[in-house]
């Protein structure tokens, strides 16, 4: 049964990974903006829900709409200031330039966070923090269950939103051909702006969950690394694939913790990632070669 417990924790971790990666899946996978600062934005979101909890005692799960609004505005500001000048670039140039700019942003956000909140690790301690229930002999924490449910709802919701609504489909259209989308009567500037805002706003959900575990200014790169792995594993442009990629990564990590020890789990996931990059760069769940 020990193995089953490892897998349970793997599934929970995987759901958190997927929640963090989902915004990047939209921003990088569909819009083609390589936002290295995504993890740092999730870190800010986590601090915001920590702040809501400490100042007014609002539960992190309940403060999600509030922090989402804050991050949406922040995302719009970032897009206006940094990325809007790249909208006409070819795919490769856009990725390279946005990677470099967002890399500068990572350094700025991380060091600002150290100045504002100090480098200490913090977390939200709710009344249900350490509690768990038994499910078929397995110990399932309530937070873990909440995370999994949230991940499923958010990811399939976003998937449906992008596939079914006019707005969602126009994001796809712009990412495929900027000029042509404009000729078809799509308000490209506004659509890109709002899509980026949504992508950043989604980190609010991830941040709420992260704040229940550990927050410190240096977690940004860790999370963006995990998110990049997931986006590549799922295949660039695949949204629902991210959930499966997250679960796969989470389970692989916890099973490898069982075999090679907890210190090398990061190495295992990164090596798998490198192998995928080399032999199947289109990802596991994408049908055709990604751009």
């Amino acid at each position, binding site marked *: 049964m020990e193995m089953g417990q490892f897998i349970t924790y793997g599934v929970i971790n995987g759901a958190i990974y997927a929640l963090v990666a989902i915004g990047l899946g939209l921003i990088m996978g569909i819009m083609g903006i390589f936002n290295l600062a995504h993890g740092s934005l999730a870190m800010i979101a986590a601090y915001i829900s920590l702040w809501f909890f400490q100042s007014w005692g609002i539960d992190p799960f309940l403060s999600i709409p509030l922090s989402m609004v804050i991050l949406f505005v922040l995302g719009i500001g970032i897009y206006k200031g940094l990325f809007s000048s790249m909208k006409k670039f070819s795919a490769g140039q856009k990725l390279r330039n946005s990677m470099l700019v967002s890399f500068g942003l990572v350094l700025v956000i991380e060091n600002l966070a150290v100045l504002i909140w100090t480098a200490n690790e913090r977390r939200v301690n709710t009344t249900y923090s350490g509690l768990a229930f038994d499910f078929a002999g397995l110990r399932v924490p309530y937070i873990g269950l909440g995370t999994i449910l949230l991940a499923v709802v958010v990811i399939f919701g976003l998937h449906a939103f992008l596939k079914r609504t006019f707005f969602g489909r126009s994001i796809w259209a712009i990412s495929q051909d900027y000029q042509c989308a404009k000729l078809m009567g799509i308000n490209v500037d506004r659509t890109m702006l709002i899509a980026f805002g949504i992508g950043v706003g989604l980190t609010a959900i991830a941040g709420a969950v992260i704040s229940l575990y550990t927050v410190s200014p240096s977690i940004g790169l860790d999370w963006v690394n995990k998110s990049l792995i997931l986006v590549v594993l799922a295949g660039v442009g695949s949204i629902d694939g991210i959930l499966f990629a997250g679960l796969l990564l989470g389970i692989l990590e916890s099973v490898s913790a069982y075999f090679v020890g907890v210190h090398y789990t*990061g190495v295992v996931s990164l090596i798998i990632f490198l192998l995928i990059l080399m032999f199947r760069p289109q990802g596991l769940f994408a049908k055709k070669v990604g751009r």
Partner: protein
Amino acid sequence: MRFFQKKMVIPALIVAFLFFLPLFFKGEYYLNMLCTLFLYVILSQSWNILGGYTGQINVGQAAFFGIGALVTRLLWTSGIPFVPALLGGGLSSVILSLLIGIPALRLRGHYFAIGTLSVAWIALITIENIFPGVTFLPGKYVATYSLLPRYYAFLIILLSAVIVISLAVHSRMGLAMESIRDDEEAAQAAGVNIFKYKVIAFAISSFFAGLAGGGFSFFHVSYYWSMPFALMWCFEPILITFIGGVGTIWGPIIGSLCYVALKESFALTMGEINVLIFGAVFIFIILFFPKGIIGIPEKIREHLTKRMGTNVGRDVLGKSQP
């Protein structure tokens, strides 16, 4: 070889000045600072040949820097003289680059960047687990420690790096590299063996990164084994090169000067605020001055002679938009 005549006067004067400086100037603080400066110049110069000239953004420079430091330290403290140990460090870094580069350089632009970042991460975690402690120099090495050999070691590595890299980029090979950076498909169509030149650039780059690491392990009496693998060593060369001027020989030198000056001036007051400022300046440079500090005079001249050129919306590595 006109390249060697007129343009060489100022560099020769600077080099001569740096060579004779310690003879009549003994301020340890400033010599230490110069060593740090040289380290950054070597590292960013080595990044520049792959990132600036060949267009392959390597976000994993720390792995090559670290492996050079690790191997040099191990060889040197086991009794081998420093120079062979240093070369061993550089070579091990080249071997690592070939092992990683041959598969990784087939990846497209941004995949190469994430791939190299992962390599640096793997190296960091692995070294933290294998060598968790601090490395101390053995007593007899500490007894004979003096700053001058360190200074000259860094200076000589720096000179060889600058000379080799500028020879490489001003040759036919350099043209091939720049053509890969500007348009990979066009270069391939024109008959450039893309993969070969990428591997060569990567090997040169990591060789000097390894030597910089060797210099680091020679310079410091004690440090955490994992310290040269820290991710900051991946980011600093990128910041420095872009701020100074990417794809130029002078760029990394000027960038390092600014970086070390800023780092020193904030070292006593606030921890990492220099990184904050540099990050902000970096964003500004990428967006508005894609040629870095080195390109600012040219930009001003452009503004004075022609109508306002549009800087915004220009690719960082040269190619302008249609």
